[in-house]
């Protein structure tokens, strides 16, 4: 996009409001124009007023991917319920429309009122995937706003990011004004308060730095421009605040009681097809299973369950209001929700006034027969397939990653599913895990083969699809020190599996592009020096890198070379305990020494059972914020080994085998 004509600046556009008249004549010429029209049910036009703070809440990918994002929907409602603010939504426009917009000088817009993005006080992005970062730059540029934060002034909106990727926002540090860590429900109001004052004072020339200083004092808000970065050769020496009132370490925000936030109350119902096109009700946040590869499970601790009664009323009200016939109970491990069986029964008994049964979805199925029993209640209609995620092929490997599922658990689940009418199983695995040997990799094929054999006892042609992803180490996990496998090594392991499964009847192998895993790894643990790389890739047209047809590894590697940066050093190098990590000045509540010990436990092949029913490991997430896991029941739900690796039905106490650790509460 280097040759792209500039978009009119914010000042040139001030007060121009809707771009709809300019946009509409071009929409018949672009693919899926319904992406750009808004009109979703549940999205009444926000009421604007001069005193109100305007938020443009964006997802840096297409409408189909971004619309269902629950975080943005929650924040949209919370802002719109205030009388001093309004929120609208924006999504990355596909390349065909972007070309027209640049040619016709139509700026990036909100889908509700087609207001130019530059007219909002803040443009906020949800960051869920590293490969969308260049789209953030593209949206800001398409808004007619300078992409680098040091080139923006009072006439420009603030650029804000939130979401899981913000636990290492350093590659985006040059481009964003604010980074918000953790749950957004409360903090968005505190940021709005500061912006309202700024508006009331007329955003005087030169006032922008003061506003950023004030925002840096809001807990959970990180302002990258207020920190100095010192290097020691290629290594990071320190990231330090430039002013005494700016926190040395920024803590994430955690909403203590999900029951106080029954959002979204009006889930948006799109007019055109999107992913997850159904009612979604979040049943809990956080996870205690402690899978070491899983960033989501680490950074969202502690567990906070929504009261079962509220779950029921949100489902019942949501189905009646939206007209959906499908609801999904979302969380990181929905079978762990206390009283899940009762909730499932209740949902199946809701009277929708229609002869058609409600379809209930449980994502992230646990690997045990209990879960299959749950699925059996739900799937009173079509039994096509069930998906499980054993993640690794051998017990040794699963101890390393702390996914303590025995082979018996998997076979119990799969056997039970086949016997109850399911014919197709999908199994998710990671490859490129720490200490993985070829025996571990081939264990994946072995498990699949045994699952097919189990299926043959019940059906003629059972099928097992094995989906293999390349492991990408993420910040604030015990694997943050691990040097990621190279593209060649990932490819070799995938080929090993291809060769082994080729002659296995009933086993299909699918895999993710290892090139994309490597670039994801570059950004996930990168530092501020990658800002130049991001900008180069974006200027050369490297947008929509999540999309196979757009992803271009060459763009990234060339940009790295031009910036004199070594991909190996960033991606494939093991970090040492004393290394300053680019996210050390941020906090997800987890003690770094806890993560390091968990990393050592991993290498020693020692598993750590679920902390919901075993003693606290003092990871820091509960104690640091003075909250506890909020669960209706701390009893392990029925079935399987429940992440302990032993058969609980045999009357064992939960076995905890720990290497000597620092006593609870003590600091090294």
């Amino acid at each position, binding site marked *: 996009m280097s040759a792209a004509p500039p978009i009119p600046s914010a000042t040139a556009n001030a007060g121009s409001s809707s771009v709809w008249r300019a946009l509409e*004549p071009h*929409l*018949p010429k672009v693919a*899926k*124009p*319904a992406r*750009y*029209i*808004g*009109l979703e*049910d549940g999205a009444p036009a926000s009421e604007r007023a001069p005193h109100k703070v305007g938020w443009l809440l964006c997802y840096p990918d297409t409408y189909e991917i971004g619309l269902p994002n629950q975080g943005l929907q929650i924040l949209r409602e919370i802002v719109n319920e205030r009388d001093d603010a309004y929120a609208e939504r924006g999504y990355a426009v596909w390349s065909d429309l972007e070309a027209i917009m640049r040619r016709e000088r139509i700026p990036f817009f909100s889908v509700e009122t087609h207001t130019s993005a530059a007219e909002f006080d803040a443009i906020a992005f949800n960051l869920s995937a590293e490969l969308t970062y260049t789209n953030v730059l593209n949206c800001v540029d398409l808004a007619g706003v300078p992409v680098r934060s040091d080139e923006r002034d009072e006439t420009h909106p603030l650029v804000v990011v939130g979401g899981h990727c913000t636990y290492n926002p350093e590659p985006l540090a040059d481009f964003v004004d604010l980074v918000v860590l953790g749950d957004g429900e409360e903090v968005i109001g505190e940021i709005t308060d500061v912006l309202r004052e700024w508006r009331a004072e007329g955003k005087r020339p030169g006032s922008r730095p003061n506003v950023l200083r004030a925002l840096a004092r809001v807990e959970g808000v990180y302002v990258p421009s207020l920190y100095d970065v010192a290097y020691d050769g290629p290594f990071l020496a320190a990231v330090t605040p430039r002013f005494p009132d700016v926190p040395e370490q920024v803590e994430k925000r955690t909403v203590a009681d999900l029951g106080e936030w029954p959002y979204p109350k009006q889930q948006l*119902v799109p*007019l*055109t*097809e999107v992913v997850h096109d159904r009612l979604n009700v979040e049943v809990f946040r956080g996870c205690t299973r402690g899978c070491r590869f899983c960033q989501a499970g680490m950074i969202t601790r502690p567990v906070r369950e929504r009261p079962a009664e509220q779950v029921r009323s949100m489902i019942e009200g949501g189905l*009646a*209001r*939206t*007209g*959906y*016939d499908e609801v999904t109970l979302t969380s990181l491990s929905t079978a762990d929700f206390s009283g899940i069986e009762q909730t499932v029964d209740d949902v199946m008994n809701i009277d*929708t*006034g*229609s*002869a*058609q*049964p409600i379809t209930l979805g449980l994502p992230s199925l646990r690997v045990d027969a209990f879960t299959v029993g749950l699925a059996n209640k739900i799937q009173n*209609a*079509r039994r096509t397939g069930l998906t499980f995620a054993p993640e690794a092929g051998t017990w040794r490997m699963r101890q390393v990653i702390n996914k303590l599922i025995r082979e018996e658990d998997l076979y119990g689940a799969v056997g039970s599913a086949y016997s109850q009418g399911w014919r197709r199983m999908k199994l998710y695995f990671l490859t490129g895990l720490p200490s993985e040997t070829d025996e571990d990799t081939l264990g994946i094929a072995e498990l699949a083969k045994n699952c097919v054999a189990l299926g043959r006892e019940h059906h003629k042609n059972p099928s097992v699809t094995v989906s293999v992803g390349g492991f990408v180490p993420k910040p604030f996990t015990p694997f943050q020190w691990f040097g990621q496998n190279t593209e060649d090594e990932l490819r070799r392991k995938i080929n090993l599996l291809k060769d082994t499964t080729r002659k296995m009847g009933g086993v299909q192998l699918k895999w993710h592009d290892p090139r994309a895993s490597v670039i994801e790894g570059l950004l996930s643990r990168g530092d501020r020096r990658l800002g130049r790389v991001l900008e180069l890739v974006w200027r050369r047209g490297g947008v929509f890198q999540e999309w196979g047809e757009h992803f271009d590894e060459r763009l990234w590697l060339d940009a790295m070379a031009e910036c004199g940066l070594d991909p190996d050093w960033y991606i494939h190098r093991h970090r040492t305990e004393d290394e300053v990590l680019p996210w050390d000045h941020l906090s997800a509540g987890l003690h770094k020494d806890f993560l390091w010990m968990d990393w050592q436990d991993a290498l020693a092949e020692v598993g750590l059972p679920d902390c919901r029913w075993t003693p606290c490991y003092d990871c820091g997430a509960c104690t640091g914020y003075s909250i506890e896991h909020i669960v209706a029941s701390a009893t392990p739900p029925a079935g399987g080994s429940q992440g302990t690796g032993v058969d609980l039905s045999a009357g064992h106490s939960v076995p905890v085998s720990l290497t000597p650790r620092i006593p609870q509460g003590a600091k090294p």
Partner: protein
Amino acid sequence: MTPPRTERVRIRYEKFGRIRFTSHRDVARVWERSLRRSRLPVSYSEGFSPRPRLRFGLALATAHESCGEYLDVDLEPGAVSSGLVDIDELASLVNPTLPPGMTIQAVAHVEPGAPSLQESVDSCTWLVDVPQLTVGEAHDLVERALAADELPVTRERKGKSVTDDIRPNVLALRVADPDERPPAADWQPAGALLRAELGTHPRACRPAELLAGVDPTLEEGRVVRIHQWTKVDGVRCEPVPLEALPPEGAGIARLSTAHAIERAS
């Protein structure tokens, strides 16, 4: 014993404004959700994956508007005859659940054995804005088109070029007055407005094909389907006629038993 018969209602609705950018598939999903929200006793298919029994008429192309779209809905046996569903109230029940720009205009009771909308519609009347044409040029175009013995149009089909003569499907064509736009069309013509009746057999002729047949450089602007035509007992009529449009044109017209007949345009 034969299962009790479902009861079919035929809904006539309009589609105007921003929602014109939704596709035929999108509109089908919108209807499914709206009918569930209004809790109408819609009949569902049997089997493992029950679907509501809805039948749509000729697809309206994405970006086209219409004040003559149709949908057949099968209701559970006895729904209408027992008085559970009042056909006169159906529009006011369902309209609040439809997105802005989609509005039910009329509803009729249809015999379940009646021919489907797809089969029975023979032609459609269109208003087509042609931004590239002045009114004078449009008159020339109409004259040329009607005088032509054939209007060959080439299109891609399964990777091959196919040439059709669309002239037999150009049943009527004239320059229209801007006032002929339906009241819900909130736009001004950018160029000349054409009014065309185009046949649907063996393949529905599209407004863009009419333009391409006369002059391949012409592009359509706004397009509105204003009528679909069928025959009942040899008499040309609309599948569900509007007795009279209320002043705004977007409201609910009461159903008339007599078929309103429009003279050929």
